[in-house]
């Protein structure tokens, strides 16, 4: 029957043509659907994998990066990897694992210079502006600084030393007489290089570099800190501050710095309300 129809004219040719086009379109469409769904799942970066400095936000990075590995090759410390097929990291994209080897923060940022596509943004020229992630002292229970032991390794290896991690001296309540030096990360200076996580002396690091969106909280946009508003405005923005009136003994004032009730200092008069001569007090009008 088909041969007969094929001979009979062009209508079937057209029909066959449309059918074959539809077949191809459907096949390619199915493949596209599968690939699309797979790629949606496969583009999420696990928290333990850190992008090289200058990497675009993850969604943009997965569009811009062409998986060439030039950044991996130009890293003088050879600490970048290209994800293999089957790994959790999007196939072929560069990453590093802070605990294995953190970024050494080269001044000339060779990995960024090597990138042909701006997936590692060439606008990054100062490595201290890099934002690979944010170190978080995530386990205070095991960090020995919180036990009052001296460690400070993370503080000392930090390439932005004294700025990204500072030590906060606190009272050691356990011994009652010692201090503890607690590392504190400052998000405005931390580049997420991972040297602290790499160097942490525990079997499993207590300080870890996390993607910034996992590490940071954010105050509600409607919040206003009263004291800052007041400072910026140069005065109270709502009801003006009423001057507090104390009901104090005459000649006394209250000092908030810790001295408490003190004699009022009146210019031209002696500092103490109690004159040197006790008779003067006795003779003062209304004193008794």
């Amino acid at each position: 029957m088909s041969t007969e129809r094929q001979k009979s004219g062009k209508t079937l040719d057209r029909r066959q043509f449309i059918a074959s086009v539809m077949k191809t379109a459907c096949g390619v469409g199915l493949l596209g659907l599968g690939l699309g769904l797979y790629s949606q799942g496969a583009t999420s970066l696990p928290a333990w994998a850190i992008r090289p400095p200058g990497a675009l936000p993850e969604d943009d990075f997965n569009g811009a990066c062409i998986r060439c590995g030039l950044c991996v090759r130009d890293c003088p410390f050879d600490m970048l990897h290209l994800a293999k097929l089957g790994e959790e990291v999007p196939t072929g994209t560069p990453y590093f694992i802070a605990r294995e080897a953190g970024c050494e923060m080269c001044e000339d940022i060779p990995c960024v210079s090597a990138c042909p596509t701006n997936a590692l943004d060439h606008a990054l020229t100062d490595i201290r502006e890099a934002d690979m992630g944010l170190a978080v002292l995530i386990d205070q229970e095991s960090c020995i600084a919180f036990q009052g032991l001296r460690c400070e390794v993370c503080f000392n290896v930090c390439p932005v030393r004294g700025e990204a991690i500072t030590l906060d001296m606190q009272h050691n309540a356990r011994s009652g007489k010692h201090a503890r030096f607690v590392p504190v990360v400052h998000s405005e200076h931390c580049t997420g290089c991972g040297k602290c996580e790499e160097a942490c002396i525990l079997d499993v690091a207590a300080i870890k570099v996390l993607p910034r969106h996992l590490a940071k909280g954010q105050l509600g946009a409607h919040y206003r800190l009263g004291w800052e508003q007041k400072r910026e405005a140069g005065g109270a923005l709502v009801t003006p501050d009423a001057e507090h009136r104390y009901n104090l003994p005459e000649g006394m004032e209250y000092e908030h710095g810790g001295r408490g009730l003190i004699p009022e200092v009146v210019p031209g008069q002696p500092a103490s309300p109690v004159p040197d001569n006790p008779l003067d007090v006795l003779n003062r009008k209304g004193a008794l």
Partner: protein
Amino acid sequence: MNAFPGRTARAEQGWFKAHKWLLLRRASQLGILVLFLAGPLAGIWIVTGNLSASMTLEVLPLTDPLLLAQSMLSGAWPVMSGLIGALIVLVFYALVGGRVFCAWVCPVNLVTDLAAWLGRRLDIRASGRIPRDARYWLLGLVLLFPLATGVIAWEYLNPVSIAHRGLIFGMGWGWTLLLAVLLYDLFVVRRGWCGHLCPVGAFYGLIGVKPAVRVAAAGRERCDDCMDCFAICPEPQVIKPALKGAAQGIGPLIADMHCTNCGRCIDVCGKNVFGFTLAYRRAGLGLSEPVGDGASAVAATRHPVSSQPGG
């Protein structure tokens, strides 16, 4: 199917002459791999990166234009070295023939050639049929993904880059993809990947529509219809117009953009019908651009299986 295409050529001209272009091609494919691998394996850094983008001797950037196009469609703007690299690649393949990439550079060709060789030797008839223009649909899909989703989704599946990157940076599970391509070519569709589906090859084909280097069936009057060239050719539909088009005034130049310039037809022909020609010498040889050039290309895509060799 002829299990031993090129037998007469081998008998008459010797093994080396009957494998000349194959040997050169393998040398090119492996040589390029060696250049990339010398760095990581032996510490001799000549070329870094991979086929997606590379840097040779720290001066010559090369970028895969299709990948760069996908990157740009996702909204990224490349740096100068990336753009220059892509331009160099475009100009090079426009001159030598776009699909020269497929035959002389691409590592997947080693796999699909192996599948074709096994198919001939073991007499496995992969009888699946899909249109040869499916690759253009796929190419459209590949370019649509970054535009629509902002992700280069094709790179999760692309056997070309996964194979090459895998060899240099670590294969992971990439070998399963190559095995899939091998089995698909061997048992499902003959020359199924490179000749029907691969959007990378489709893209390179489109670059080199009018290349300077082409195969021509200059000695077609000597053809004795042994069919060896059809049996060996990865895109056999390209041969017919050039070899058998004398009556219609078509050929003898193989003008179809799907020709990969692999030169195997030259190797296996016992009658020296085929040879490479350069554009500027074509006039001298009487090999002007055939009149039916465009028509034959359309015919090849619209009737993709019509010129498949008989069994």
